[in-house]
């Protein structure tokens, strides 16, 4: 530290003489010899100091300490003052020694306490000695007591503003406190006082310049140091670091990057050559070897760096490098404890902190991992990587999903702010997308696109992205669910291609095979949606054959068969799943239950659904709703009123249970509303449906039920409007049953208002239904029925309110009806029809009598209209007549009219009798049809009892009960579903969920990749667009 005037020799005054003994600096004796000379010559103590300094300068601190310690034992003066410099120097040397490389913690403590002891002795001799104070300052600095150290240096500088050691100490504190410009001023003072001071203040200045952004000036400073001392390793190290930092800048071309790194490495090499023990040089070199993939060399250097006692940052970095090497080797425990050491030496070593978090995650120590990552965030709130990992951790537990989204959002915002894909790991976006799938599909897509962007960049750079196929699969699934089938197909195929390439390059592995299976399954789902059923089937068959345990493939094949009406094959396929693959496969049981319902095997269906609730999941909302609906149906058919009420109560209980599990389940609420309706509380039911309709207007069944209840309440106009809008909104006017329900309401409206015109509208609606499904002979029957009703209404009308054309039209309609009824009655008995042939025949006869009546009425009408014509003529004449004449004419006309009305009333009485007969027949018919279609929503008590008797609604009602999406199959033995896994670093967070939107992710199998959107599964099953998940 103190630099005495420099010459080639040191002198020892010889005792009792003016001569001196010259000792060459380059050839110093050992301390023992030296001490012999000094003691025998009784040299003053300051000579001990001079020799100690020389030893120290030659890096022989032990010798220096030895000679000084010996010096203190020399007692030939009672004056303690000359001993002071010895204590001071000893203290400094011990401090220096404490931080030499390779010193153990124990040794260091010994040195530091020795230093403290010497400083104590020095203080006793002279409490105000500058050097002592400076040393004390340095000791405090070494112990990181910045404030105390600062006080000591300030004290010294107050006494002696030119104290170089104090100035240097002060500058160091200023640098630590990041007061770089202040530090610069301090260093400049030192340079003014002592231009060739060692250690070279230009190093410190260079650091300050660099920190202040004056990179070139910094470089000049370090170069100057090297000019002054070509072996100044620190200066070289600083230059190397500057070059290395340059390479971290984004905008460098590949070539520039290479050159810069090379330059840095040259500096580093020079530093290492100058001082093989320079801790930072060793550390950087270690890093270099890690980078170039020479872990053994790196390990050796890192180990050395980790022992650089006193240089905590260097030690921390050393441990970090070792940890990282272990981490890469897959020695996670070892890595974890090394990271821990790195962090203990420098809690702000974020890279080490991050690695620690990762290895802790691997060890499943989630809580500690969270702490590690949160620590990074405490210091670096915008560390996207840490935010992303935390989001990922939180996303895994159901309770912290919203927290996870918060983190993901934060990360995305930061990335947007920086306008760069700072995160190089597409996993974050993948996980984010998966979380968002339940809530925000546009954000989901965006997140996937981000992930894809990162992957593409990586691929452009020639890096391999091993989970690219899975990512593409997920993106495809999103497009798939949103109905962009073409782009979904493209992505699926691209993903498949990538898998093929991967297998060609790396050979067949189970994971890739599993991914391929998942993608193919999704592709098959897409084909199904596009109605390319044979293509889909081919894939399902192949999957089912190769991987017998892949339950969903069997189930889809079953659904396809079921759609074709091949119930036996469908049953077999469902049985394969619950019988051979997984007895607790809820989807298989559910599909089975639905199929049974379809086949009118109500009791079997109920048993199946009960099985799900009793043996698999007593909270299975789907099965509970199905059971409620079945109960409702059974109740409807029950004749005994007391039992009926009991059964309704039971149905109600099922729906109630569902609402307890999911308070917002519109299907259950719908069921309860139906229950209210069947108890005749229509108004209440209507209120409930209305409310539900407002909150869950996307469920077609609700619109239909609302329409139905409106019709039941006699609000036919309302019902017609509701049916019309539902038909258009949900069914593209493609569902004949909805149109028929609308026609029925219209029919009732026409009857209610006795309006033939409105009856014609009912005819129009029924014709539209027939056009959609011409093979439904029942619709044809309805058309005949409506035409007869029209004729009846025309017949019932007063002559004033109808025309000859009306009657002729009605008669023509009766002719058409007759033709239809005749052919319907004549349909061969081997063909099953949903009407009674006898009744069709009776209807035909009824039409004949109606026709007779109308024929007569036509004559009357003709007479009436001729009469009217004549009356008009007469009245014209009358206007020309006298007032009295007009009165006379009026009287005659009124008489005539009265007569006519009596006649009409008589005929109507007769007709009403006829109509009642017809009504009876219709009731018969309706009962028959009700049996066919089972699920009748409205009860006899509340139904109109005419025309269709609500059974069309019934059909819709049934549809709402379509099976839920088959869920994650429990655990197909093989294949495991595609994994989105990045093996090495982020092992802990590597995980990907399927695109399953199902909230009720019961097994949480994180590896599943199937596309299981209910949307299409359900559609296939029962041909309805509504969904009953949430």
């Amino acid at each position, binding site marked *: 530290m103190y630099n005495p005037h420099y010459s080639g020799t040191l002198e020892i005054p010889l005792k009792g003489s003016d001569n001196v003994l010259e000792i060459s600096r380059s050839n110093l004796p050992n301390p023992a010899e030296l001490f012999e000379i000094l003691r025998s010559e009784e040299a003053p103590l300051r000579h001990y100091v001079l020799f100690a300094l020389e030893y120290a300068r030659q890096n022989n601190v032990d010798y220096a300490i030895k000679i000084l310690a010996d010096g203190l034992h020399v007692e030939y003066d009672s004056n303690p003052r000359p001993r002071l410099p010895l204590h001071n120097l000893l203290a400094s040397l011990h401090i220096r020694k404490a931080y030499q490389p390779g010193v153990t913690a124990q040794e260091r403590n010994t040195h530091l306490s020795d230093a403290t002891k010497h400083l104590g002795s020095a203080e006793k001799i002279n409490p105000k000695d500058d050097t002592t104070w400076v040393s004390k300052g340095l000791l405090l600095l070494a112990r990181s007591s910045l404030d105390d150290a600062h006080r000591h240096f300030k004290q010294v500088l107050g006494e002696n503003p030119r104290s170089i050691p104090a100035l240097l100490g002060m500058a160091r504190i200023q640098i630590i406190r990041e007061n770089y410009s202040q530090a610069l001023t301090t260093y400049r003072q030192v340079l003014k006082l002592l231009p060739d001071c060692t250690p070279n203040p230009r190093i410190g200045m260079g650091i300050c310049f660099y920190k202040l952004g004056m990179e070139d000036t910094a470089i000049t400073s370090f170069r100057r140091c090297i000019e002054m001392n070509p072996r100044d390793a620190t200066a070289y190290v600083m230059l190397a670091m500057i070059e290395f930092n340059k390479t971290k800048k984004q905008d460098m071309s590949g070539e520039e990057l290479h050159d810069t790194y090379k330059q840095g490495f040259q500096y580093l090499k020079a530093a290492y050559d100058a001082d093989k023990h320079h801790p930072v040089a060793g550390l950087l070199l270690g890093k270099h070897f890690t980078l170039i993939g020479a872990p053994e060399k790196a390990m050796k250097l890192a180990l050395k760096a980790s022992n650089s006692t006193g240089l905590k940052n260097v030690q921390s970095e050393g441990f970090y490098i070792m940890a990282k090497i272990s981490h890469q080797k897959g020695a996670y425990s070892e890595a974890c404890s090394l990271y821990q050491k790195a962090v203990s030496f420098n809690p702000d070593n974020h890279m080490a902190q991050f690695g620690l978090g990762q290895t802790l995650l691997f060890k499943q120590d989630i809580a500690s991992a969270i702490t590690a990552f949160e620590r990074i965030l405490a210091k670096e709130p915008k560390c996207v990587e840490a935010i992303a990992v935390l989001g990922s951790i939180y996303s895994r537990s159901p309770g912290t999903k919203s927290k996870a989204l918060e983190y993901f959002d934060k990360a995305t915002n930061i990335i947007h702010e920086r306008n760069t894909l700072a995160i190089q790991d597409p996993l974050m976006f993948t996980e984010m997308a998966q979380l968002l799938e339940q809530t925000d599909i546009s954000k989901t897509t965006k997140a996937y696109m981000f992930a894809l962007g990162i992957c593409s960049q990586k691929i452009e750079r020639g890096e391999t992205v091993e989970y690219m196929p899975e990512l593409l699969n997920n993106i495809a699934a999103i497009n798939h669910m949103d*109905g962009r*089938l*073409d782009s979904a197909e493209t992505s699926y195929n691209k993903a498949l291609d990538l898998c093929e390439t991967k297998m060609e390059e790396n050979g067949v592995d189970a994971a890739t095979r599993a991914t391929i299976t998942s993608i193919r399954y999704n592709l098959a789902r897409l084909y199904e949606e*596009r*109605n*390319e*059923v*044979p293509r889909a089937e081919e894939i399902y068959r192949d999957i089912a054959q190769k991987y017998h345990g892949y339950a969903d493939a069997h189930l889809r094949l079953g659904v396809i068969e079921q759609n*074709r*009406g*091949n119930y036996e094959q469908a049953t077999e396929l469902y049985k394969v799943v619950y019988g051979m693959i997984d007895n607790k496969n809820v989807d298989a049981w559910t599909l089975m239950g639905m199929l049974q319902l379809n086949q009118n095997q109500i009791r079997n269906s109920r048993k199946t659904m009960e099985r799900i609730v009793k043996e698999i999941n007593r909270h299975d909302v789907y099965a509970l709703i199905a059971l409620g609906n079945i109960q409702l149906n059974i109740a409807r058919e029950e004749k005994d009123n007391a039992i009926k009420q009991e059964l309704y109560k039971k149905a109600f209980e099922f729906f109630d249970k569902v609402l307890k599990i999911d308070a917002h389940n519109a299907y259950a609420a719908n069921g309860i509303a139906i229950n209210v309706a069947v108890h005749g509380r229509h108004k209440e039911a209507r209120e409930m449906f209305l409310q539900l309709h407002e909150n869950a207007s996307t469920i077609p069944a609700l619109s239909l039920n609302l329409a139905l209840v409106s019709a039941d309440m006699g609000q036919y106009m309302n019902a017609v409007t509701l049916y019309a809008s539902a038909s258009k909104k949900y069914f*593209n*006017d*493609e569902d004949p049953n909805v149109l028929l329900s609308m026609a029925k309401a219209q029919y009732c409206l026409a009857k209610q208002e006795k309006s033939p015109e409105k009856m014609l509208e009912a005819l*129009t609606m029924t*014709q*539209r239904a*027939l*056009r959609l499904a*011409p*093979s439904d*002979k029942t619709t*044809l029957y309805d*058309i005949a029925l409506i035409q007869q009703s029209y004729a009846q209404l025309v017949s019932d009308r007063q002559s004033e309110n109808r025309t000859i054309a009306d009657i002729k039209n009605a008669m*023509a*309609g009766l*002719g*058409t009806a007759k*033709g*239809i009824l*005749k*052919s*319907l009655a004549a349909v061969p008995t081997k063909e099953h029809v949903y009407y009674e042939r006898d009744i069709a025949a009776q209807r035909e006869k009824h039409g004949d009598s109606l026709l007779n009546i109308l024929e007569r009425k036509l004559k009357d009408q003709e007479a009436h209209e001729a009469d009217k014509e004549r009356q008009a003529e007469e009245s014209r004449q009358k206007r020309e007549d006298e007032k009295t004449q007009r009165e006379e004419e009026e009287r005659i006309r009124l008489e005539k009219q009265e007569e006519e009305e009596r006649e009409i009333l008589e005929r109507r009485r007769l007709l009403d009798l006829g109509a009642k007969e017809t009504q009876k027949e219709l009731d018969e018919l309706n009962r028959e049809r009700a049996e066919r279609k089972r699920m009748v929503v409205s009860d006899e008590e509340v139904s109109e009892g005419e025309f269709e008797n609500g059974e069309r609604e019934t059909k819709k009602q049934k549809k709402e009960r379509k099976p839920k999406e088959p869920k994650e199959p429990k655990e197909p033995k093989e294949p495991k579903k595609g994994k989105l896994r990045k093996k090495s670093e982020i092992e802990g967070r590597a995980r990907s969920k399927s695109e399953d939107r199902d909230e009720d992710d019961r097994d949480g199998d994180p590896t599943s990749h199937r596309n299981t959107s209910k949307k299409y599964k359900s559609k296939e099953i029962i041909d309805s667009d509504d969904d009953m998940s949430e």
Partner: protein
Amino acid sequence: MAPWGKLAHDAGIWSAAWSSKNALVTGSLDNTVKVWNAENGELKGTLTGHQLGVNSVDTNAEGTLAVSTSLDSQIRIWDLEQLKQHKIIDAGAVQAWTAKFSPDSKHIATGTASGDINQYSVESGEKVQTFEGRGKFAMSVAYSPNGEYVACGTEASSDSSTVLLFDVATGKLRHTFKGHAMTVRSLAFSADSTKLVTGSDDKRIMIHDAVHGDTIRTLSGHSAWVLSVAVSSDGVHISSGSSDNKVKLWDLVADQCIDTMDGHSDQVWGLAWNKQGNRFVSVSEDKSIKFYSTTSA
């Protein structure tokens, strides 16, 4: 846009045909058949007699006769020059869903509920031949322009054999196309009789090789049932109408959609090309007729 604006009929229009003499014939749910001047959109006449909705219309090669069928399976033949009924054939309930003239104008083919195709003689009104189907309701029927084949599209069937092609000369079933998963409501041959275009409730249009019996290509794009397909006589275009209310124009050569028209507010039930193959009309449940030209498009 032709002057026949919004309400060409009082109810949904279900079918259209464009005669070689430039008359447009439309059939509607309002029980009428209307004849229009396709040049200026002027109504030439309203033909009444059907008691239920008019399900299909077609014109003969000479443009002198039109045939229509109604929901009650009445086949009526109309004289397009005198605008009056020429003949009535009662096929019996659901025994004549749609009808088409044979290219030589001698016969009318119509599909039945049992899936058979019956050929009636225009002259005598008698049934002269039956092509035996496979039991599924025949929704649509078409002759190949060369008169060699007659094809029909049926209701959905369990084995997906919804498109059948018969050899007129032998009366035998020649090909069964199994591509469509659902009901085939409309089909049409290409002008050279080599391709058969079908539209289905499965939202897809398929192009089949009528000669060899292969399905060549599937066109997807409609988001709901395909209700109508028609091929231009120049063999370049296919037009299609759907219950998604859209009309699409496809390039038959390039197999891709080249235009989508959304002028209709309801199901598009029928399409008809003019003789030259450069203009076509669409008719819809929204009661309107829309006019398109491919030359200006």
